[in-house]
């Protein structure tokens, strides 16, 4: 599980859904969609400290930024370690928000020709991130 701490910087509410922006640090804001509103979840207050959680398997790795893509959260970093398995591999990268771990197919890892020091971008969809107090 990737876990980062931040503060809520913005909340857009529509019926029972909220699109929450979490400022991790000066460089990075993550967006998250939740089936909660400030009425149902008292922690949804601007400036409130909050944790964001996402599975390693939900992280998409690309070497180049793709501007026209429907993924809201993009974080730049460099590959630190790679653990190669038969079908799946684990990659950890140093990024502007800290270490992000991704699990991807070994095939994709080879196709992208990734190694320690490669510059990559991690992408996570808004519906793959959970919030925790």
């Amino acid at each position: 599980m990737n876990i980062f701490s931040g503060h809520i910087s913005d909340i857009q509410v529509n019926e029972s859904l909220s699109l929450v922006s979490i400022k991790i640090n000066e460089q990075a804001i993550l967006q998250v969609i939740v089936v909660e509103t400030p009425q149902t979840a008292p922690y949804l207050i601007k400036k409130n400290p909050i944790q964001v959680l996402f599975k390693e398997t939900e992280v998409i790795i690309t070497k180049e930024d793709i501007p026209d893509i429907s993924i809201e959260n993009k974080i730049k970093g460099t590959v630190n370690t790679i653990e190669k398995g038969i079908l799946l591999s684990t990659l950890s990268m140093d990024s502007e928000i800290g270490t992000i771990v991704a699990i991807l197919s070994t095939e994709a890892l080879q196709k992208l020709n990734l190694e320690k020091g490669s510059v990559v971008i991690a992408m996570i969809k808004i519906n793959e991130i959970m919030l925790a107090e």
Partner: protein
Amino acid sequence: MITVDIYKVLQAANGNIMLNIQLDIAKGQLVTLYGPSGSGKTSTLRMLAGLMPVDKGHISVQNQRWLCTKENINRSPQQRSIGYVFQEYALFPNMTVRGNLEFALEKRQNTDIIDELIAIVELEELQHRKPNTLSGGQQQRVALARALVRKPKILLLDEPLSALDIKMRSKLQDYIIKVHRQYELTTILVSHDIGEIMKMSDKIYCLEDGKIVKQGNPIDIFTNTRVSGKFQFTGEVIAIKKEDIVYVITVLMDQNIVKVIAQESEIIGLVIGDKVVVASKAFNPMLLKVEV
């Protein structure tokens, strides 16, 4: 609404404990009393039922006073409209299933309730059998039905399922939920089984040394981190297996087995038998209509 505020000095193995319990239970709720042995759970049920004297306090149920030590009001157990189910079935061995239920009828009470209850807990085939020819789960169903013959307002369940195996327990839980809803009961359960509490209760009271130390909804009480995931269930870890670079964790939830892929960092300290919350976002699960 049930309002309880009772004091009682209880003699325990290592000295006296001062029991002081306050409960506010809305009509129709199913709440659980949870805590170590000797924390006062069974005593609380017994005082509610009028089976154990209270030193000081009051109990009122839907604006009727059942107990008020100040004004010397103390209804007898028979006047309290309570159904009580214990871990032991306590059935009359010389009577049939039906006989056990009929014995609980009040004078001049309409006997239709017997057939209704037999149908609800599915005892039709067994109604003419004696208790000693039934399995533990079947006997407990009889005890549950018998507790409801007089149409009580409150159902008290003192670890009713702890002697049963997991499959039978799950079935009995479903019967309890069914009668709880159908008869609009207010139910107080004593249980140690976290999965059972999560499945059944609206609210949990944690007792220690005769006091309520925590109360709230079960997910908040049993999990350290509250996550926003709308898809949350508790279960028990039954297998942890490393495959390739990930771990496959097998979790038993109620009667279903699920598998979760985890990273090494997620399973630190996790061992077989641990209770876990399996959480996902409401966006991930797919719904497939079951054709019947």
